[in-house]
């Protein structure tokens, strides 16, 4: 298993607690003064999440049961936009290299993948350099860049 760094930020190595199995145990973590990480799955409804618990986490891993389970992308977007989560966001499970840029642009920082796929992941992560959507990682849609520098400054909030 290899950990791919998509954004280049320093990656966290805190222990992870599975949220879906024990929301209470996860909740307790927020009360302590130690760094913590959470494992969410694509089944996790964002509305079940406590904003404080999320915001204070160092690391959140979203586990994909299948690469086609696109809920993981929306959950990542939710964490960034609705919960102001600024910690490391990691994708685990059978995601595929051809999804590298989608993961990155939905807000993921890192991916755990088989050794055999690591090189393809790295390659795919930098493939496209122009995008049709402003995303939650600072890429600006070409619809904005086309219209000058003042628009280019507009970043997703």
């Amino acid at each position, binding site marked *: 298993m290899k950990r791919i760094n998509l954004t280049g930020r320093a990656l966290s190595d805190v222990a992870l607690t599975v949220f879906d199995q024990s929301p209470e145990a996860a909740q307790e973590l927020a009360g302590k003064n130690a760094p913590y990480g959470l494992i969410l799955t694509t089944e996790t409804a964002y509305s079940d999440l406590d904003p404080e618990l999320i915001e204070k986490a160092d690391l959140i891993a979203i586990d994909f049961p299948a690469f086609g389970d696109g809920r993981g*992308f929306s959950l990542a*977007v939710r964490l960034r936009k609705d919960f102001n989560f600024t910690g490391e966001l990691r994708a685990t499970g059978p995601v595929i290299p051809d999804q590298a840029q989608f*993961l990155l642009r939905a807000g993921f920082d890192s991916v755990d993948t088989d050794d055999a796929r690591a090189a393809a992941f790295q390659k795919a992560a930098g493939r*496209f*350099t122009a995008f049709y959507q402003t995303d939650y990682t600072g890429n600006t849609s070409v*619809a904005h860049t086309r219209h000058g520098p003042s628009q280019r400054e507009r970043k997703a909030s």
Partner: protein
Amino acid sequence: MYAYDPYDKEIVNTRVEEFRDQVNRRLSGELTEEEFRPLRLMNGLYLQLHAYMLRVAIPYGTLSSVQMRRLALIARKYDKGYGHFTTRQNIQYNWPKLVDTPDILLDLADVEMHAIQTSGNCIRNVTTDQFSGATADEIADPRPYAELIRQWSTFHPEFSFLPRKFKIAITGAPSDRAAVKWHDIGLVVRKNDAGDIGFEVLVGGGMGRTPVIAKTIRDFIPEADLLGYLEAILRVYNEQGRRDNKYKARIKILVEALGSDTFADLVEKEWQTTRHHPIDVPEAEIKRIEAFFAPPPLEVLPEQDPAVDELAANNFLFHAFLKNNVRPHKVPGHVNVTISLKPHGGIPGDATDAQMDLVADLADTYSLGEIRVSHEQNLILPHVARRDLPELYEALSRSGLGTANVGLISDIIACPGLDYCALANARSIPIAQNLAKRFDDITRLQDIGELKVKISGCINSCGHHHAGHIGILGVDRKGEEVYQLLLGGSGAEDASKAQILGPGFDENGIVDAVETVVAVYLGERQDGEKFLETYRRIGADPFKEAVYEAH
């Protein structure tokens, strides 16, 4: 027409390289077919009964003559000399080789075309009215908005792995020629009291096993908020749409389960939290795109032309062509000409490379190089001067493109069916051909009048049988191809679901049954009534009696 800028070019070219890389990995054995499948499907490459099939997007059904010539070239170079225009304003090639597909994409990219998101569980090619920008009954040309949606939905990082495929249609006119109520999202351009442009938003329409007509969730979303509002719909669907059962995964099932009011509330709530994010584009961008679709400078010409009238008086077929295939344009003295791809005995929607080249040449001569593709699988030359019609008709009929049956019973929508499609239960094409043969007399066709027949080879409904005035559905009964007969559907603004009339028929029986249905209509119709109007007035019973008594 829209023209790519360097950003658009870069994105499409990068996609070609990416796909070439994926194909190479497959050919070298690095990827198994199972791993390759989702990748090729994101790019419109299906494995069919006999070969790969490549589906190429024709965004909102608009083509230039240059693009049409390229489609012809691809048909010649990589296929068996023809292409198939589909109900989603795409073109399909039935015989490409896997190893050639990256080169095909390169040839397409060269003329600003692609196969991006023509399959897979993502937002598909946005479809619209084939007469956009050329018809008097529209509030605004919907194509700039379709282009805006095309860009926003292309490689969307959050919405590329939806529960199921997702289809958006938009119309700028109250007369709905894009079947918007049968789409996952339907958009209808509206103008509010202040004169501002916006959209009525409908969600949850769709065919398949569970036909549903879309419901309005917002009467008016301002132009500037369109993408943000669409994003909110897609987010709610991506999170809450069912993923446990492929047949329950479309947005229509979610909207039915929640109720459209609850669904609308969820969308509204999400939209309110994101509406100040730069999902929506600057006004200058809308203006930039609109400029590409500025109405062409057409001279106002006399509405009547003596040469046209004279030919119509002497040539019965031209008279029929004028009546059925020619529609008024918004500029006086001009018309929109529909070229029927439904010659009797032919394959609905198919065109040969030579026909595509000819249409491209005719477009250069008569329609400012512009061509449209309709969801009814025909081609349209917009902006034609009425006085050019005799010449144009002559050129078309010489090449087998002059069939004067648009909107009539032989202008049939048919899916590829068992002749090509791996999912099919029954053949569709031969049924269309036999029907056309049975009604092979133009006088009779015209007497019957507007009658939309739609044929699907299985319940996936690619042939839109649920929306047919007469719908035909192929099913499998213990290895036999059986055809169900449905009546009373509509894909227009008065959308309705066709209802099954009774037990199914074999291949010959279905043609007889359609003929009986038509006979009942002709006997029952009142002055000037169209088939659908008669059906709605008298109901299914008289048809049922006649069709099943005879057996």
